[in-house]
């Protein structure tokens, strides 16, 4: 399994045909406006909008949903932590158990966690229309056209590459553990083995990533992707961007000024 973000770059869709430069810039602005949203109804609206864009790309939903696993791993615990830890404010609903006085469950915490989670999902889903609808190098080159500093482009390029190295290494090492009949259980040995596993994995992937970089240098790489892409902006591209900008304004208006319900 290789989670290439650009696996479906050859599909034909309104998002695929959008000039990568405008596409990335516009969707980035959309992502920022989503991250600025405060109210749950707005955030749910954004979530729907992300799904709509995703549907327009014609990329199988399962491909995008896989990406959500990581978000859930990171943000899932918030649902447990936030209700227990946020500071109570006047008007909060708080549940507690009569015999466990220290364990207070603040409903506002649950609400906050939901907001954080939905926002994260809405933004992560945008990554697929943003970077999954043209070849990865074309997208990277577009960033260069958008005057993104080269150091940042290099960082994106190598982080992306590092993920692959990391996953390949993860697979190789877990196979090595399996053939040696390692069965996890709840004891110190298991914990120690996992500790070693993670440490070795990080170090090995770092070394491998370094070697990938050396192999690039050895073939004349000088810090800039030399591919030639001729981007052409069609009138339709501006219309697509204009529609998204309208949505951005809608999000901001609805979130800040609309007090209908």
């Amino acid at each position: 399994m290789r989670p290439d973000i650009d696996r479906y770059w050859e599909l034909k869709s309104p998002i695929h045909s959008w000039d990568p430069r405008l596409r990335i810039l516009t969707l980035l602005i959309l992502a920022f406006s989503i991250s600025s949203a405060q109210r749950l109804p707005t955030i749910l609206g954004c979530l729907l909008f992300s799904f709509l864009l995703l549907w327009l790309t014609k990329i199988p939903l399962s491909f995008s949903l896989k990406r959500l696993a990581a978000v859930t791993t990171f943000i899932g615990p918030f649902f447990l932590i936030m209700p227990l830890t946020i500071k109570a404010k006047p008007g909060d609903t708080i549940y507690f158990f009569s015999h466990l006085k220290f364990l207070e469950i603040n409903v506002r915490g649950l609400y906050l966690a939901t907001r954080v989670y939905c926002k994260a999902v809405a933004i992560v889903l945008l990554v697929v229309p943003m970077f999954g609808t043209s070849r990865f190098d074309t997208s990277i080159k577009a960033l260069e056209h958008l005057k993104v500093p080269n150091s940042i482009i290099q960082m994106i390029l190598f982080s992306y590459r590092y993920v692959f190295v990391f996953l390949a290494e993860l697979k190789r090492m877990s196979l090595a553990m399996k053939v040696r009949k390692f069965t996890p259980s709840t004891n110190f040995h298991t914990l120690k083995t996992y500790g070693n596993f993670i440490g070795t994995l990080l170090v090995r992937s770092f070394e491998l990533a370094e070697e990938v970089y050396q192999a690039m240098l050895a073939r004349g790489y000088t810090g800039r992707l030399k591919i030639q892409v001729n981007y052409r902006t069609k009138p339709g591209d501006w219309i697509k961007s204009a529609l998204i900008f309208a949505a951005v304004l809608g999000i901001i208006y609805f979130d800040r000024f609309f007090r209908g319900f």
Partner: protein
Amino acid sequence: MEKKTPIITIRNLHYTYPDGTVALRGVNLTVFEGESIALVGKNGSGKSTLIKHINGLYRPEEGEIIVDGLPVVEENLREIRSRVGMVFQDPDSQLFCSTLYDDVAFGPINLDMEPGLIEQRVHEALEKMGLLEFMHRPPHDLSFGQRKRAAMATVLSMRPKIMIFDEPTSNLDPKNEAIMTGLLRDLPTTMILVSHDLPILYQTCQKVVIMREGKIDQILSMQEFISDVNLLRTNGLDFTFRCDCCHQDPKHHRYLTEEQEISESFEPSPP
């Protein structure tokens, strides 16, 4: 006697890693044009560190290196990297694009070749490696043996005068090992081969350079080298197992020598 032109000259090379590990302690070596050199030595003796100096991936702390008349210094790096091709041990370090074509074109593109020429070079390199049919496939879909050859193609497309290989046959099955050996033997370039695999070295190299603790310990001919069992043992050369298995069952000789057999084994392996 034919006249020999030095193509790589290394003088008094010292190198210490940033963490303080002293890896090279005064290496002196001359490689002549057209030679095939086996670079051997125990693990940690400094072989990989040495070869990474030849194309300027590491910069000497002391000493100098001259490649094809050019000192290995910042201004010459671009030119030197076009003349020195390096194939890394792990093929996955060399394959990172979405298609095999892009990976093989990466070097020529960096060297600012004309688009027409790039295409020609990519075809030529893939054809030589028997991978033409996989041109538009993602490299990670290939088998390990094919990826090893793909990594070699990414360097061949630059048509370097010197090729350096770090463990080109490690982890290969006998069939792919035989293919690789055949390919190495047919390379017309000057070649440096780092390996622990005696049969492959024997079939491809005429001269053996032995490294020990960051220095060149001995330089000898392949004949002298293989006749000294102690020398083979102390340098961790992998040979006993192979010889045993050949004696036991000559029919399953691991090394195909017939050109025919080699070309047959180019058949793509079933998925």
